[in-house]
């Protein structure tokens, strides 16, 4: 099996706030991420597709095709947006790295028709990232 990975970047604003908690609890739980005016990150997304190369093309999935999917599903939706207000898929969710990566996984899964979506890795900063992987039931690769 071969894995191919494509990287894209997008820049977005967000803040963390749970309306079910008091203002004081929000500040305690979320710290500076609770600033109501928001703050931003340069997100780096790495998407990995696994599969066997097509004998006719030598490719698992044409990277151009993957690039177009990532542009349309992720960059067009999230780049230079406020994640709390402008991305319907995140409505009602706190836009943490974990939740954004999960939403990206859900957006990409039905659109990867050649090979298999293997991993979505989203960096919020060089020192923090979330991974989404398929459940392996202990028999497959590790995350």
């Amino acid at each position, binding site marked *: 099996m071969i894995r191919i990975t494509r990287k894209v970047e997008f820049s977005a604003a967000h803040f963390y706030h*749970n309306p079910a908690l008091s203002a004081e609890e929000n500040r305690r739980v979320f710290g500076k991420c609770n600033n109501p005016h928001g703050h931003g990150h340069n997100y780096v997304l790495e998407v990995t597709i696994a599969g066997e190369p097509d004998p006719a093309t030598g490719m698992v999935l044409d990277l151009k095709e993957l690039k177009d999917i990532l542009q349309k599903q992720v960059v067009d939706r999230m780049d230079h947006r406020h994640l709390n207000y402008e991305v319907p898929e995140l409505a009602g969710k706190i836009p943490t790295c974990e939740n954004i990566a999960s939403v990206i996984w859900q957006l990409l899964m039905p659109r990867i028709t050649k090979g298999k979506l293997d991993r979505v890795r989203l960096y919020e900063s060089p020192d923090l990232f979330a991974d989404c992987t398929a459940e392996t039931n202990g028999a497959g690769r590790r995350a």
Partner: protein
Amino acid sequence: MKVSLTRRYRFAASHRLHSAKLSEDENSALYGKCNSPYGHGHNYVVEVTLTGPIDPATGMITNLGELDPFVGTTVIEAFDYKYLNEDVPEFRSVVPTTENLCREIFRRLKSYPAATLERVRIEETGKNSFEYEESAS
């Protein structure tokens, strides 16, 4: 779908690779310049990976406000600007290779209460990295 969270930390430390089970010549042949008697140092990068359910109230597997101080106290404060062979008691009898460092850091972080520790990965330099995870039972 399974979600994990990884946080990168840094510490700078010195060490010397020398095994009490080997002769001076054998140590020198095996470890080469890493056996130099006065030790040498690295800027280590430690990646800590945690799994667990995403708490709907916070959107998080774990709150960094909780993770950072835990890793800070149990690992970074104990290792940063230290001579691993002497200043970290566990390495007085175990060679402080990065393999062993991965296991020791995993051991120290395993008791983290808020999520499940999945993996410790260490970059000893920009060219070497090592990973440790415990096999699923």
